[in-house]
C-alpha cells in the first residue's frame, strides 16, 4: 500500500507508514482517490431521507444555495470514526420529563413484580416457619388455659389445623367422591385445599412481612453503603482546587435538584468511580474516588455527579435499603430456621438480638450493624449446618489412636441387651449370666480406661449424637426449603430486583439530564468511567450504588487480556508457520504449538504484572490472565461470574442501553466501541458453517428447554417434599402437644 503522505510503499498488513507514521487505511475504490467531504447538515438530512424529512415538503429545486455550500467547505479527510463524533439525533427524541414519567411507571411495575417474586421466594421458608409458629401458639394457649379456661371450639380449631394433612389424606379416599380420579389430588375439595394452603403459608409470609420493616428501621442507622466509608474515605481538602471544584459541582447540582447539599467524601483510589450512600436525601453522602477528578473534565464530572444527586432525589437510597432489607429478612428467617441445627445461624441470631437490646456507642453500633447485615445477607447462601458436619468426619482424634476406639462405647448398650437376651434364651445359670454381663461392662470400662484422655470428648460426642438423633427429622424438613430459598433467590428474586434497580438507574439518568441540561456531559462521563474507571477495590458489597458497575473494569480487563492473548497467538502462529497468511490455514500441530506458546507468554505476562505491582495494575488482571490460560473455562463463565456482581443479572444496566436512552434525550455521542459486557470468544477465528449451525440450533435450544423444564420439575419436587415435611412436622407438633398437655 502506498503512503498518501510520503509515497513510500508499505507491506499490506502495516497499520501505519514505516517511514513517516501516517496511518494507512485499507484501499476502497471510492475513498482512495477522492477525499470525502463532510456532509453539511442539510446534505446529511437529504442523504438520510432522500425523499425529504417525513412531514416536510421536499426542498424546492430553485434554491441552489444548499447545494453550493457543500463544495465551499474545506475538504477534510474522514478518518477512523472518532469516539465522540457527533451524529444525527435519533428519530425517537423524547423530553427528559417524558422519559422520567416513563421510567417511573416502569419502576412501579417492577416494584409490583419484585413484591410477587419476594413472596414466591418466601414460600419455602414459610413452610418451615409455620410448625414453629404453631407450637408457640399451642404452648401460649395452654398457659392461658391455666388462668382462663379456653373454650373447646378453639382446641378443635387447633386440632383441625395440626391434623389438616390427615384431612387431606382422608379426602383422597372419601367414598362420596369415588370415581372422580381415584386417589388423585383432584379429589381434595378446593375449600380444604385453600384452608391447608392458608395454614401452611400465611403465618410465615406474615411473619416475614412483619420482620421486613423492622429490619429497615433497625439498619437505617448506617444507611446503605456505609461499608464504603470504612475504606478510608476522607473529607475533601478545600485548599486543593480540584477537590474544591468537586464540592462546588455537587452543591450546584443539589441546588438544581432542590435538595440539601449532600456530604462529600473522597477515596484515594486509583480507580475512577463514585457512589451515593446514606439513608435519605437529608442524610446522604457522595463518595468520589480521587481518580475521577483527574480522569473527567468539569462537564463530565457534573453529569456523573448529577446522576448521583438525581438518584438521591428520586429516593434511591430508601429503595436500596428496602432491597437490602429483603435479603436481610430472608437471611434472618433462614437463620431462625437453621438455628437448631447450625452454630453459625445461632451466632447470627445472638448477635442480632444483642444488637437490638444492647446499648452501644454509636460508632460501635454502626460497625456491628455492618457486620450483622453482612452475616444476614450471606446467610442465605450458607448451607453449612455445622452441627451436623462432624457426622462426616467424626472423632478423627480418637480413631487415630491405637487400641479400641471410644466410638465402640456407643454399641455397648446394644451389646448389653443382646448378651442379656442371649443368656435368657440359652438358659444360662444366674452366676454365668451375671458374669457375662459383668464382662461386657468390664470391657466397656477397659476401653474407657484405655482412652481415658478422651473420655470428656467421648461424653461430648455422645451428647452430639443424641442431639443429632433428636434433630434429624427437623434437619430433613429444614433442608429442602433452604435449597429452594437459594435457588429462588438466585434465579427469581435477585434478577427481578436487579431489573428494578436498572430502571431506577435509567430514571436517575433522565433526571440528571433535567438537572444539568447536558446529556452529553453525562454520556461522556459514563463512557469515560466505563473506559477508564471501574470497581473500587473493596467496594463489591456496595457495587449497585456506584455510577458504573464493577462489570466495567472486569469487562475491560477481560477484553484487554483477550486482546493480548490474541496478539501472542498471532505472533506464535507466524513463528510456527511463516508461510501461513491467514488464521486457520495451517496445520493442526502448528496451531496447537501456537496455543501453547501463547499461553506460556500469558503466564509470563501475569508474572511480570505481579512483579511490577508498584504501579496501579488491575488486581484481577493477574487472576484473569491465569484463568485465560485455561482457555476453555473462560467462555463458560464470561456472562456469569465475570460480571462482578456475581449474580445472574447485573444490577447495572449495560452501557450501550444507557447511551441509547441518552441519545434519545439529545446526547450526540456516537456509537461507541467501549463495552462493559465481557465477550470472550476463544476461537472466534474458526467459522462455523451456517448450514451446520442451522442444523445444530434446534438441538441446542431443545437441550436448553429440557434443562429449564427439568429445573422446574426439580423445584416442584422440592416444594412437594418441603410441603410434606411441613405437614408432618405440624402433625408431630400437635401430637407431642397432646402427649404433654392433654386437655
Amino acid at each position, binding site marked *: 500500500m502506498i503512503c498518501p503522505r510520503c509515497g513510500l510503499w508499505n507491506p499490506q498488513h502495516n497499520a501505519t507508514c514505516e517511514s513517516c507514521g501516517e496511518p494507512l487505511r485499507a484501499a476502497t475504490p471510492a475513498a482512495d482517490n477522492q477525499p470525502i467531504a463532510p456532509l453539511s447538515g442539510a446534505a446529511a438530512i437529504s442523504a438520510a431521507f432522500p425523499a425529504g424529512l417525513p412531514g416536510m415538503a421536499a426542498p424546492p429545486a430553485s434554491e441552489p444555495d444548499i447545494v453550493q455550500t457543500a463544495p465551499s467547505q474545506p475538504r477534510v479527510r474522514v478518518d477512523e470514526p472518532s469516539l465522540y463524533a457527533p451524529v444525527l439525533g435519533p428519530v425517537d427524541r423524547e423530553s427528559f420529563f417524558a422519559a422520567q414519567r416513563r421510567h417511573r411507571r416502569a419502576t412501579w411495575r417492577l416494584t409490583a413484580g419484585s413484591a410477587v417474586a419476594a413472596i414466591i421466594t418466601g414460600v419455602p421458608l414459610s413452610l418451615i416457619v409455620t410448625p414453629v409458629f404453631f407450637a408457640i401458639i399451642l404452648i401460649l394457649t395452654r398457659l392461658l388455659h391455666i388462668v382462663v379456661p379456653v373454650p373447646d371450639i378453639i382446641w378443635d380449631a387447633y386440632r383441625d389445623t395440626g391434623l389438616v394433612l390427615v384431612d387431606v389424606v382422608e379426602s383422597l379416599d372419601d367414598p362420596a367422591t369415588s370415581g372422580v380420579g381415584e386417589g388423585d389430588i383432584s379429589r381434595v375439595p378446593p375449600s380444604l385445599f385453600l384452608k391447608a394452603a392458608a395454614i401452611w403459608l400465611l403465618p410465615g409470609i406474615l411473619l416475614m412481612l412483619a420482620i421486613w420493616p423492622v429490619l429497615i428501621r433497625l439498619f437505617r442507622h448506617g444507611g446503605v453503603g456505609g461499608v464504603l466509608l470504612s475504606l478510608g474515605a476522607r473529607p475533601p481538602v478545600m485548599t486543593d*482546587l480540584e477537590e*474544591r471544584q468537586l464540592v*462546588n459541582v455537587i*452543591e*450546584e*447540582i443539589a*441546588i*438544581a435538584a*432542590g435538595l440539601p447539599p449532600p456530604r462529600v467524601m473522597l477515596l484515594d483510589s486509583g480507580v475512577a468511580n463514585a457512589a451515593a450512600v446514606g439513608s435519605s436525601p437529608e442524610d446522604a453522602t457522595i463518595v468520589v474516588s480521587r481518580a475521577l477528578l483527574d480522569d473527567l473534565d468539569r462537564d463530565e464530572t457534573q453529569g456523573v455527579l448529577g446522576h448521583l444527586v438525581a438518584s438521591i432525589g428520586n429516593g434511591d437510597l430508601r429503595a436500596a435499603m428496602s432491597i437490602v432489607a429483603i435479603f436481610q429478612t430472608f437471611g434472618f428467617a433462614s437463620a431462625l430456621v437453621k438455628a437448631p441445627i447450625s452454630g453459625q445461624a445461632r451466632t447470627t441470631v445472638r448477635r442480632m438480638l444483642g444488637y437490638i437490646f444492647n446499648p452501644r456507642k454509636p460508632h460501635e453500633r454502626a460497625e456491628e450493624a455492618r457486620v450483622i447485615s453482612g452475616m444476614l445477607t450471606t446467610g442465605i447462601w450458607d448451607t453449612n449446618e455445622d452441627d451436623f458436619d462432624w457426622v462426616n468426619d467424626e472423632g478423627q482424634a480418637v480413631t487415630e489412636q491405637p487400641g479400641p476406639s471410644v466410638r465402640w462405647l456407643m454399641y455397648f448398650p446394644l451389646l448389653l441387651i443382646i448378651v442379656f437376651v442371649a443368656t435368657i434364651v440359652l438358659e444360662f445359670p444366674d452366676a454365668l449370666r451375671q458374669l457375662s454381663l459383668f464382662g461386657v461392662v468390664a470391657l466397656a470400662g477397659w476401653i474407657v480406661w484405655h482412652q481415658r484422655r478422651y473420655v470428656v470428648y467421648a461424653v461430648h460426642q455422645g451428647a452430639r449424637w443424641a442431639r443429632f438423633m433428636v434433630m434429624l427429622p427437623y434437619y430433613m424438613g429444614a433442608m429442602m426449603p433452604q435449597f429452594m430459598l437459594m435457588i429462588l433467590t438466585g434465579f427469581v428474586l435477585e434478577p427481578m430486583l436487579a431489573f428494578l434497580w436498572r430502571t431506577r438507574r435509567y430514571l436517575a439518568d433522565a433526571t440528571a439530564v433535567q438537572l444539568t*441540561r447536558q446529556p452529553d456531559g453525562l454520556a461522556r462521563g459514563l463512557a469515560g468511567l466505563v473506559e477508564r474507571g471501574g470497581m473500587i477495590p473493596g467496594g463489591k458489597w456496595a457495587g449497585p450504588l456506584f455510577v458504573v458497575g464493577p462489570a466495567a473494569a472486569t469487562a475491560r480487563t477481560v477484553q484487554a487480556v483477550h486482546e493480548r492473548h490474541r496478539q501472542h497467538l498471532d505472533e506464535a502462529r507466524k513463528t510456527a508457520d511463516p508461510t501461513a497468511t491467514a488464521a486457520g490455514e495451517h496445520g493442526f500441530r502448528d496451531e496447537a504449538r501456537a496455543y501453547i506458546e501463547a499461553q506460556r507468554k500469558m503466564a509470563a505476562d501475569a508474572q511480570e504484572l505481579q512483579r511490577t505491582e508498584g504501579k496501579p495494575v488491575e488486581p484481577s488482571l493477574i487472576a484473569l490472565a491465569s484463568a485465560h490460560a485455561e482457555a476453555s473455562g473462560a467462555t463458560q463463565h464470561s456472562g456469569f461470574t465475570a460480571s462482578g456482581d456475581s449474580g445472574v443479572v447485573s444490577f447495572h444496566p449495560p452501557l450501550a442501553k444507557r447511551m441509547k436512552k441518552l441519545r434519545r434525550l439529545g446526547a450526540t455521542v456516537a456509537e461507541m466501541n467501549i463495552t462493559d459486557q465481557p465477550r470472550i470468544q476463544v476461537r472466534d477465528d474458526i467459522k462455523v458453517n451456517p448450514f451446520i449451525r442451522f442444523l445444530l440450533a434446534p438441538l441446542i435450544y431443545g437441550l436448553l428447554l429440557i434443562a429449564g423444564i427439568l429445573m422446574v420439575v426439580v423445584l416442584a419436587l422440592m416444594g412437594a417434599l418441603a410441603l410434606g415435611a411441613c405437614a408432618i412436622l405440624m402433625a408431630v407438633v400437635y401430637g407431642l402437644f397432646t402427649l404433654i398437655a392433654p386437655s
Partner: protein
Amino acid sequence: MWIAIAVGVVILVIAILLIVVYNGLVGKRNQVRNAWGQIDVQLNRRHDLIPNLVNAVKGYMTHEQGILERVTEARSQAIAAGANVQQRAEAENQLTGALRSVFAVAENYPQLRANENMLALQEELSSTENRIAFARQHYNDSVMEYNTARETIPAVFVAGMLGFAQEPLFTLDAAAPERPVPQVAF
C-alpha cells in the same frame, strides 16, 4: 339505608381526594417559593465574594481601577435595590458583566493568573454563576410542576376556589414592571 351509606362513602372519597389535592398543591407552591428564595441566597453569596475578589486583584491591576470600581458600584447598587425587582435585576446584570470583564482583563496579568488565591476565587465566582443559573432553573422547574398540577384534573376544578394562583416563570424580561413580586418571607 344503603343509599345513605353509598352517599356517605362518596362524600368520604371526595373529601379524601380534596385533602390529597390540597396538600399536594400546598407542597408544590411552597417548593416554588423556596426555589425563589434560593435565587436570592445565591445572589447574596456572590455579593459576599466580591470584596475578596477586589482585594485579591487590587494590588496587581493598578491600571484598571475603573473596572474594579464598576464591580463595587454594581454590587452596592444591587444591595441597595433590595426587594425592587426591576432595579435589582438591572444591577445584577451589570455586576455579571463587570465580573466578566475583570476576569478577561486578569488574563493579561501572568502573576495574577498563577496566583492560587485568584484561581480559587475564580472557581468560587464561576461556581456562584452556575448556582444562580441552577437556582433559576430549579425555580422554573418547580413553577412548571406546580402550574401543571394546578391546571390538570382533578386539581383544576378546585385550585381557583382554594386560592392557588398561577405562578410566573422566570424569564429574561423578569424585570418587566407587570411582573408581580411574589410575597415571600425569607
